[in-house]
């Protein structure tokens, strides 16, 4: 709605001005980008953590925050491309928001190699988000390796759940999940 109101106000201002001649020295000032300089907050639409309900409402795709990986792999599988794209879109539309990507692995194998593998998984998600328009400084990637399993059990079901990158959000006012 405000997209209609602002141009209308601007035209009213321009019409109200008397015309003055342009400076003859040819100086032309660059207009600063105001994209993202103001973040709109709708208090009626925030959840308990201070994040927009869109990020936590189970009916919204953005409430899905985990990207799962195959054993030893760190490529984002086709089935998660849409999810990553949805989060990238949110970050483009909400420049004041930041995300922390935490990479995780299952418990098998070397703890140190798993720490590096978790970093690769987090970096893969970060790279996708940035390619789709998120700003570099909106996205931080870290690894928890195998140290913080979501499912402490053993066996393929638990391991599959732990081969994962999670997306955590923080609003411009500092409130959020990290």
């Amino acid at each position, binding site marked *: 709605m405000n997209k209609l109101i602002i141009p209308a106000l601007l035209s009213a201002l321009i019409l109200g001005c008397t015309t003055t001649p342009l400076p003859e020295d040819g100086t032309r000032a660059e207009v600063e980008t105001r994209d993202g300089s103001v973040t709109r907050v709708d208090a009626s639409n925030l959840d308990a953590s201070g994040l927009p309900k869109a990020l936590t409402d189970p009916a919204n795709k953005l409430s899905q925050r985990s990207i799962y990986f195959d054993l*030893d792999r760190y490529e984002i599988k086709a089935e998660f491309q849409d999810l990553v794209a949805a989060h990238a879109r949110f970050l483009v539309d909400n420049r004041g928001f930041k995300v922390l990507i935490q990479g995780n692995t299952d*418990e*098998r*194998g*070397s*703890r*140190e*190699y798993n*720490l*590096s*593998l978790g*970093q*690769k998984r987090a*970096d893969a998600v970060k790279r996708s988000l940035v390619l789709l328009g998120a700003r570099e400084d909106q996205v931080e*990637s*870290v*690894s*928890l*390796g195998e*140290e*913080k399993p979501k499912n402490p059990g*053993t066996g393929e079901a638990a391991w599959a759940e732990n081969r994962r990158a999670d997306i955590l959000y923080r609003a411009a006012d500092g409130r959020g999940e990290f």
Partner: protein
Amino acid sequence: MSRIVHRLFLFAALFAAAALAQAQLVVDVTGAGANRIPVAIPDLAGDSVAARVIAGTVRADLERSGLFKMVDASETGLDENAPIDYADWKGRGADAIAAGSVKRAADGRLEARFRLYDTNKAESLGGAAYITGNEQLRTAGHRIADFIYEKLTGEKGVFSTRIAYVVKSRGQFLLQIADADGQNPATALTSAEPIISPVWSPDGSRLAYVSFEKKKPIVYVHSLASGRRTVVANQKGSNSAPAWSPDGGKLAVVLSKDGNSQIYLVNADGSGAPQRLATSPGIDTEPRFAPDGSLYFTSDRGGSPQIYRLPPGGSVQRVSFEGNYNVSPRPSPDGQTLAFISRRDGRFQLAVMDLASRQTQVLTDSNKDESPSFAPNSRMILIATEIGGRGVLSAVSSDGRIKQRLSVAAGDVREPAWGPFLK
């Protein structure tokens, strides 16, 4: 000190040990060497309580190594100067016998003296004396066991060395230091967040490790006596996998500050900027220096994690070729063997490679071996593994014959690191 007071002291010490039981390592031995040397270790003469503790420690150390068999020696009071009836001891099956005594000095401390005899050659193999307080009777026993081990096998013993490991219990992580037999555990660090990859400085006074206490992996150096900690790597991203340089002045660490995990060199006092040691398009991690100065590490530059070696002034060579997952390389202190973890049919097992012949041998039959660490005499390898869903430590001889298991009652034990010889 009167004998009664002395006994009370020992009783109090035992009581204190029971209170610590949940973090006390319990050792089980499975398997033994093919040709065990029969030795007789009678109780020492003199102060009987102390003598039993010392002789008991010597016997337990030698038996646990899997290289010795105890010959019954119920005699007591056989001191280091008593005449030895070689034929009698030989007749009982002993190849060697140790005799000694414990005497209390005026200052209340104890002096343990002993001599070792070869019954076949009918001669003394030498002896030693150790001064000790009541709290260090076991330490005196470890020293005597080291002496006997070296005289009879020709290799240095590791009974006096210490080990470090991490216990996870009730959501807490404890970095502990214990004697090589799991006794006398002391906690160097407690944290609500994970602690991984402890490594001993070459002089045994400091540990480097990775702690997640600041919600991300950071490398610290921790002086054990003072508890003083120094941050040696805290860059953007992950900081992990410390490995001491042979002179103890620097550490190889793995940093993700420029994207991929890559190996850098930092100063052990935390000064200066990290210097890059190797460059690859993939993951490089788990660096370890060999005695010749070359650097072994894990890299997935070839598509799967494998072991590589960077010789001083040379270029990187691939070392492991069998299978698609070979990690955690640890060159032995004598430079002859490489221990590592190999995935075979989905099972993670301890393997060793003879570096001269490149022959590889899998030493265990377990599913989840991790984090190998050589004893300083290169004879045993300490690993973390899992039995019945619980994390335990296992010490495996380099030929795979002898296995000891170290576990705690209420918790997981992991991330073992065997300390250096005492100076």
